[in-house]
């Protein structure tokens, strides 16, 4: 898991003078499931297209096992892609779609048949060989697209929001399925999505992107628990982002009082963003509370209730299994470990690289 398979070195990309990628530095390890996560327009798909060879970077280097591959055309790369809308060949049936790449390699027909049926078995489409691809459901087409790419036995599989068009239940199933396939084949998956839950569920490594820059690279747990800035905190799950001032190491001031926290190294009296996850705010008796507020609204979310609780300075989102009536004044408490301090400005990409 430690070898660098792909390195992106200071990749920049402009379209008509418009910068889309502003210096991407990233390495991808062999056999890793890595997800590029970010809102639309953040540059994640462009990064993927550069890896696939469909775009070339304006500047910077793409290295595959240390060799530059900027100018290698897509058809010569050991990389295959599962496209966003599948891009199945409508004039070919299921088996012919899956066999397309193998036929170009001019493998013996017998071997092609064996590989195709083994692959259709893997994605759960046995018996669909002769079916017209246009007659398949979204989920089935998705599986054909995955089979068509995997049958090539690539070193790397690129997946561009492959589950975007599926309904929620099917999407959950396919997430598990994809993770299973990745683990059983040992192929490096580079996955693009804007769905943070999907990213957290499947990935070994998550790369959070925004405005053409990498915001944070880390394991799903790191990204969720230790977001490096307010953007990541806000994009990954729900967050309360409160303006505050770092008094000194391990003491932060917000909402009119001082809180103990665990962060250090911000200097004294520095303005910061304070991030608290809604599930980390506990509803307590007002006499034991650090903050008090009035319940503004309450929505049932299944496992928990989502409450908006207004204190003097800030309206907090709180997830709790308790159900408090609207209008009631409640107390809130948070332990120091759950108070995350972020710098006001986003750190530069170089710093990110150094940390990882």
């Amino acid at each position: 898991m430690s070898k660098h398979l792909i390195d992106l070195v200071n990749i920049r990309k402009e379209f008509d003078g418009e910068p889309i990628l502003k210096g991407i530095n990233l390495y991808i390890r062999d056999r890793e499931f890595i997800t590029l996560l970010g809102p639309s327009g953040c540059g994640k798909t462009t990064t993927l297209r550069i890896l696939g060879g469909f775009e070339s970077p304006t500047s910077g280097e793409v290295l595959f096992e240390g060799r530059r591959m900027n100018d290698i055309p897509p058809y010569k790369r050991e990389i295959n892609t599962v496209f966003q809308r599948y891009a199945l060949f409508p004039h070919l049936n299921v088996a012919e779609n899956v066999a397309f790449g193998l036929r170009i390699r001019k493998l013996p027909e017998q071997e092609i048949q064996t590989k195709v049926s083994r692959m259709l078995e893997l994605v759960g489409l046995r018996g669909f060989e002769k079916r017209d691809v246009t007659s398949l459901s979204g989920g089935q087409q998705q599986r054909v697209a995955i089979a068509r790419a995997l049958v090539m036995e690539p070193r790397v599989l690129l997946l561009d929001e492959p589950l975007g068009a599926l309904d929620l239940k099917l999407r959950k199933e396919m997430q598990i399925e994809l993770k299973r396939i990745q683990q059983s084949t040992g192929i490096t998956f580079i996955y693009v999505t804007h769905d943070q839950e999907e990213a957290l569920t499947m990935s070994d490594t998550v790369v959070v992107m925004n405005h053409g820059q990498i915001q944070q690279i880390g394991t799903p747990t790191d990204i969720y628990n230790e977001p490096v800035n307010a953007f990541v905190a806000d994009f990954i799950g729900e967050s309360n982002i409160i303006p505050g001032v770092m008094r000194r190491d391990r003491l932060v001031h917000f909402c009119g009082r001082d809180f103990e926290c665990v962060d250090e190294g911000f200097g004294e009296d520095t303005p910061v963003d304070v991030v608290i996850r809604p599930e980390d705010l506990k509803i307590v008796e007002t006499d034991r509370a650090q903050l008090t507020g009035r319940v503004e609204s309450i929505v049932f979310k299944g496992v928990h209730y989502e409450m908006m609780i207004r204190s003097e300075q800030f309206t907090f989102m709180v997830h709790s299994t308790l159900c408090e009536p609207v209008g009631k004044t409640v107390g809130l408490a948070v332990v120091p470990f759950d108070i995350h301090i972020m710098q006001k400005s986003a750190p530069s990409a170089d710093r990110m690289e150094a940390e990882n």
Partner: protein
Amino acid sequence: MKKYMAYPYGVWMVIFIICPILLIVLYAFSDGAGGATLANFAGIVEYWPIFVRSFFLAFVSTVICLALGYPLAYIMSRQPPHRQQLYMTLIMLPMWMNFLLRTYAWMSILENKGFINQFLNRIGFIGFLQSAFGYTLDYIPLINTSGAVVLGMVYNFLPFMVLPIYTVLIKLDPKLIEAAQDLGAPAGIVFRRVIFPLSLPGVISGITMVFVPSVSTFVISKLLGGGKYMLVGDLIDLQFMGNAYNPALGSAIALVMMVLIFLCMWIMNKFDDGSSEEGGLML
């Protein structure tokens, strides 16, 4: 749309399409004296060289139109949108000019003392032929050749090849091309395995739209072939408007022609597997 809104067209069809066809059939089987006969069809046999020539010249024109039109349509479909508009206008522009006028224009270009021959004379090419090879004419025969007829057909019908192919190609999902490249296909294979098969409906429409008017034209062969290369269209024309006046024979020829064209189209459509819905313009 309410159903009755189609009635005017229904009436139109009956009066101007169904009735004339029935009349043709009636004429084709009549002996001119109120009786039924097959003699008209027997009479066609002696004209079979004209049929062969018509189908041959139409076939040649269609092949040339395809060879010129496909690359043009393909290149057009890859241009940025504003340039596609420009090309489209350029292709359509001659069609806004009267068909007869365009063909007359070709006459004056191809004539023995026409534009091309004058030009060749001016640069001394014909003189060169005469002195070097003992060439006896003082012009190169261009008009009244089968080549001139084919040229006229290609010139007039080329847009009908380009447009349906172009229409199919611009609708082709670029992701399919990327998918093929991704699976290891260099440009040649991408074209052979993906682009061309998916553009077949347009090709078939184009072939139909060029072949049918080519095989039945009579103006082009009359003006550019000078009557030497009589086509089925001219033959039919003669039976109704010319000195060979014989509407019964003319109707029989027209009927046979219809059946032959129908057969050609039916065979063409077989190539398309009947699987595609994009063609639209076929029989």
